[in-house]
């Protein structure tokens, strides 16, 4: 066997080892129940509870944003983010929040929204303007 082959196999082994260690980053989606059981960060997939309050008042505090998420088990909890409210938040079909539970509130450090694409499936604009 040539050195170069050994090097190639070595690189492949390193790749496998790294992927194996990296796989802890590839989590599964947790629920609020799982979040209560751990102190580390979890990723929760759910829907926005549209009947509950979505609070963001930039004039009061531009870094405080709260809303409610229903997780895949149907549990609803308040989620708080110390950040500005993302665009098109209300339109989201699915929400993925990353963070941890603190008391009753879920403190989110990151949020990912799955929105129906705005520029697809849209009504055909008519030339006539619609006014008040």
């Amino acid at each position, binding site marked *: 066997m*040539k*050195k*170069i082959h050994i*090097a*190639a196999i070595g*690189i492949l082994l*390193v*790749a496998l080892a*790294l*992927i194996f260690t*990296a*796989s802890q*980053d*590839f*989590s*599964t*989606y947790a629920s609020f129940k799982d979040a209560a059981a751990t102190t580390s*960060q979890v*990723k929760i997939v759910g829907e926005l509870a549209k009947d509950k309050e979505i609070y*963001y008042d*930039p*004039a009061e*505090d*531009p*870094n*405080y944003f709260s809303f409610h998420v229903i997780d895949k088990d149907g549990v609803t909890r308040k989620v708080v*983010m*110390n*950040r*500005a*409210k993302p*665009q098109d938040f209300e339109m989201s079909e699915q929400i*993925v929040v*990353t963070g941890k539970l*603190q008391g009753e509130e879920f*403190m989110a*450090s*990151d949020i*990912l929204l*799955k929105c129906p*694409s*705005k*520029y*697809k499936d*849209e*009504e*055909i*604009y*008519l*030339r*006539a303007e619609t*006014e*008040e």
Partner: protein
Amino acid sequence: MTENIDYIGELLWPGEVGHYLIITAFVAALVSAIAYVLSNSDRDNHDSWKKIGRYSFYVHGVTIIAAIVILFSLMLNHRYEYNYVWAHVSDDLPFKYMFSAFWEDQEGSFLLWTFWQVIISVVFIKVSSRWEASTMWIMALIQVFLSSMVLGLVIGDLQIGSSPFNLLREENASDVFATANYLELIQGRGLNPLLQNYWMVIHPPTLFLGFALTSIPFAISGGAIATRQYTKWVNPALKWGLWAAGILGVGILMGGAWAYEALSFGGYWAWDPVENSSLVPWLILVAAIHTNVIAKSVRRSYKMTYGMYALAFIMVLYSTFLTRSGLTAESSAHAFTSSGMEAQLLAFILFFIGLGLWIFYTRGKFIPSSKEDEPFWSREFWMYLGSFVLILSTILITFTTSIPVFNKIIDFFGSIAGQDLSSWHRTTPLDPIAHYNRYQLWIAVLIGLMAGTAQFLRYREKNYKKRFRKIGRDLLISLAISIPLAWIGLKWVGGQGLGYVLLIFAATYGFMTNIVYLFSGFKPNAKKLGSVVSHAGFAIMIWGVMASGLQKTYISTNPFVMRELVQDETMANQNILLYKDIPMRMSNYEALYYKDTLVRNERLYSIRFTEIDQKGNRVDSFELSPSSVYANDFSEVVSFNPSTDRRIEKDIFTSISALPPEVMNVSEAQKREKELPYEEYDIPIGDTIYLRDQVAVLKGVNFDSYHQDYTPEDSDIAVSADVLLINPESNFTFLAKPTMVIKDHRFVVHYPAKSNKNRAKVRLGEGFVNFLYPKDEDLDYHKLILEKGQTVSFDPYTITLSGLEKEITHPEYEAEEGDIAVQAILQVHNKSGILVDVLEPVFVIRQNQPNFIRDFKPRSGLAANFIKIDPGTGKMEFMIGERTQDASDRFPIRIAEDVSRSDFIVLEAIVFPGINLFWLGSSLMMAGFFISIYLRRRRKRA
């Protein structure tokens, strides 16, 4: 049904021609591929087959370009009967964004890609004619697949490709298609406002040129090996490989620059799946170039070079699949949505994987490969290792990016086994940037250490001890300079942990070794330049990445203002609130938002920053204008564009992160307007209203100047009131001009006036409708008989019948068949002879019955009815109404107090130190490829 309607104004032939052109292009590519294959196998008729192949390819090229020209002219002419035109163009889209609109979606971007493949192939036939027959059959096969993507043929249940020439009414269901003249009713949807940016004009063509160029080293090497020319291809492959890596690299960098400059990502690279999938082919190309150089120099690694070129091309196809299949939509900010062409894309990939493997397994045994082992301290061995490290990097990136694909595969097996395997699904990393950086850091360390050291090694090194005596001094010098320099760097970027220490050292050492290598042997050696520039560029780039990444600081913080309940301090202080005209302290800056201006669909917020040193002195000041972008119909704000103060040592990046809800969204503004606690005051002109904090004076009612947002149109009836708000404490005054408009004599539109400083909003009461458009019972009518040209007095005015008009312009008139209608033109002058109003009442005979359409003008307060024409005498009878006195002396003014301010912005400001090192380094890295191309060509000529 709609099929039976004869539509008016549709221009259908260009679409049909375009569609047939694409079909011709597809067939021509197929013919060309077959002819080129035959030219390789049928050696007796080699030249004639080659000619057929070439001319078929030209036919393919011409038809593709013609189809592009047709589609582009349809877009320029706003032919909304075509779905692609309607979906991406609108009447107000400027010409420069037509290009962006062209390649915004799947079909257009496939055409762009196909176009570049054509151009590259034609250039290739001219400059590398010796390799034409062996290469072009693969290029033609690629064209077969690419043009099939826009074919739009339906055979049974099978749809092949999606045509850009599909009609709007075929693609969409809407009631509007029930009318034959639907084209007059519809409007183009327009280009996504996020893409109305000049980067969108230049980034995609460059990237697709890079993608197209990636195919050619694969076609050259694969084609040559398939036609039993096992070694000579390394020369043309290297030349084209360098072009591919250079252009693709520039394309990727443009994407980074766009993200940094125009999108509010807050960085140039986010390890987004779409970004990754163009980076991976580039990394493989770079690895292939290294093994190609080895193959040229020491005649080994032909197989490996071919394999890497093939892999680079296949990864381009895989990246196309990932971004266009909708699979990455969950993890990516800018992937296409699903196109329904997944199967076709998959066939594209599988075909070329199959072709690549077939060439390898049928011809591999004939490719010469060196039996002897390469010496450990030889240049080639370390270049191999370098390539392997790059491949390792791509394996790691691709694995994480492919998680959605793995989930799909798991589902596929689940469906075979009839089990739900969704518990096996994995998600993409919680923090993708940290995830990728953690592993790619070590790749960068290895590259930094090797990039310079390997330069000093020689090919086929036998006597490394002697060599080390010679180069040892140079390496030691590099090391000696690198250690203190890296230490200074570490102090600057402030990285913690072994990884960062090693990274900054590796980058510094990589830079120093390359510089020393360039000047070793007493004179700078031009031959080395390309490689040295690229490798040193890489090292500089790593410095820039570390400085801008680790030292990135939010300056939009003001600890005194922030609430205490924020738990997570790192996130808490990213945004600051700026009220208009109120200076605000943030970190060591004072920020003042003082103006906003609307430019097309973008509102620019001008902010003046003043830097303040520790003693409180003003040391520097500059202006930035981050902006918000409205949807094409202005109904809401859809994105924020940043603005950056660029300096040599650092960038100050600002972006708006939120605006008041009523500014963000029209329906929110309407909702809030309805909820405002308006009080109505019925007062005559000159009266003062005493409010809680201030007084308001009704200065007048006028028809000449209106609210700033209102632009008068012909058929409008509009009025505004001048209401002066005076705050007795601050002595601040504001002249509000609330305006009311009746549009088309049908709907009422209000323009309330707001003073943020007075925290008050003024609106006209609904009673103004009667002022603008009074009921007949509120008018006193007098009969007036006039001849054409006659003037009579009507205190305090004079009225002249200046003419009659058959063309009816009155907004309330709707023509019916059999109507006889006349519109009178009555000029109203005041005592000084100045024209005040023109009254245009209409007299209509409909089904033998006379009808009158009144015209009222609020300025004179006169109404006119045209009630009789005496054909014998030519006399015409009018009823002229004037307002009864008491209807015009009191006006309903509505005022709301304690209205929350809506003149603020929430701003995010970040300092990126040393980011120019990133741009400098990465640009040098790409420049190295072009320097190499230039030097190689010159050497060949010499």
